[in-house]
């Protein structure tokens, strides 16, 4: 039931993807311009820039998703269809997750081409695992806060203020894991090389936060929607 709704949502939000994906690329280009196109700065900073681009695009994706829902009272219709709030949450978060994963793929190609990002051998597993976990966490918290700010006049300003601080732990974890996968980050103790194995504890952190956000979303979605 949820999967079917999810698919319908995906079809509907393909419009959003056509704007969010180009936006993410624009952000990548802007970082390039802002940092003078200097590969000495860009290449080591790739993981951080990558995830900041994801976060900014996430804001757009979440905003679009819930703008579509509230536009014609579609959300009320969904709720009246008798689905559990938790089911609604899972469906919404899954749709967002799919969008984020597509975004990740595009951005990854983007940083490889534009910032000369090079994966170290064996970094692929780490990269994919951390990207999926981070996207999962972002999708969960994005869905919760998207629903919360949906339909309010201050939506555009409120959503970033709410979402970005809470997503910060994911940004930290994901950046660290990517640094290990790319082999870029500077650890003061051992010069400028981060061991590949140093990325895995951060993956653990990502998993913990993703789990927390999903749990909070499942619990909080119901009470929040009661009469929203």
């Amino acid at each position, binding site marked *: 039931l949820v999967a079917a709704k999810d698919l319908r949502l995906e079809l509907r939000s393909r419009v959003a993807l056509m704007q969010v994906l180009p936006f993410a690329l624009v952000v990548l280009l802007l970082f390039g311009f802002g940092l003078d196109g200097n590969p000495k700065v860009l290449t080591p900073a790739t993981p951080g820039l990558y995830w900041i681009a994801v976060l900014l695009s996430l804001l757009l994706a979440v905003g679009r998703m819930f703008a579509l829902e509230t536009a014609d009272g579609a959300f009320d219709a969904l709720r009246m269809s008798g689905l559990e709030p938790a089911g609604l949450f899972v469906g919404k978060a899954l749709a967002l997750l799919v969008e984020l994963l597509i975004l990740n793929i595009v951005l990854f190609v983007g940083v490889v081409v534009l910032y000369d990002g090079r994966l170290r051998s064996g970094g692929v597993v780490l990269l994919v695992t951390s990207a999926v976990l981070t996207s999962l966490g972002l999708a969960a918290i994005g869905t919760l806060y998207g629903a919360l700010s949906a339909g309010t006049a201050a939506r555009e300003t409120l959503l970033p*203020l709410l979402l970005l601080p809470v997503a910060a732990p994911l940004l930290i974890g994901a950046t660290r894991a990517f640094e290990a996968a790319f082999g870029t980050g500077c650890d003061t103790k051992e010069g400028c090389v981060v061991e590949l194995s140093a990325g895995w504890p951060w993956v653990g952190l990502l998993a913990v936060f993703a789990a927390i956000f999903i749990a909070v979303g499942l619990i909080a979605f119901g009470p929040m929607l009661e009469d929203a």
Partner: protein
Amino acid sequence: VSNNVKITSTSTRGSRLLGVATLAGVVATLAFGLLISPPDINQGESVRFFYLHVPAAAGTYLAFLVTAVSSILFLWKRTRSATWDRLAGASAEIGIVFTALMLVTGMMWGRLTWGVYWRWDARLSSTALLLVMFLSYLAVRRLEGTAEQRARRSAVVGIIAFLDVPIVHKSVDWWQTLHQGATLKLKDSQINGLMLFSFFVGLITAVLAYLWLMMHRNRIGMMDQALDEHGLELALQERRAEAVRA
């Protein structure tokens, strides 16, 4: 004018007493912190920042804990009432003041001791996040909508923001970085007796100040709610009275 609205001041005898006690506590903290307690062997005079810094941290934890608990009690249907929403909002506002105080004193101390105002240390970063998360909590409280909607939304945000408090607290143990761990322990504190006493004066003062501010902020909240409920009625009555007179 109306018999429904009886609150005309935010203070009562109890809160005035509490206010005087708080003031005495502030004076005592200043006296012990600045004059009576000795300078630290390693840090010298800059140690005195801690008599404000640590109590402010305690006040932050206390205030946000009250926000989180009140938010949960609001969301739980059996205990739902506007009181919990009011308390949660009041406590968050006071907590933000404590957080800012803690950050400012910590930064000034850091400039003296570490040489910089800010370091991207786990505790500093998580505290900065705590501040912005509760600022966004206040933003949510100001959203339009019915009182019920507003309360429900802000309760969810308040609980999520509170999840950062244990992270702030344990950050010094989990990621051992620049910020030192807890100095005050119940047993075997490695600290001068007079300094320890000064800390306790500061801590008690922080709690007193919190309670005093809470009483006032809570009453302002009650007046707000009363205004929401009876404001229109009151205005109508006044107009009618005018009409009768004319």
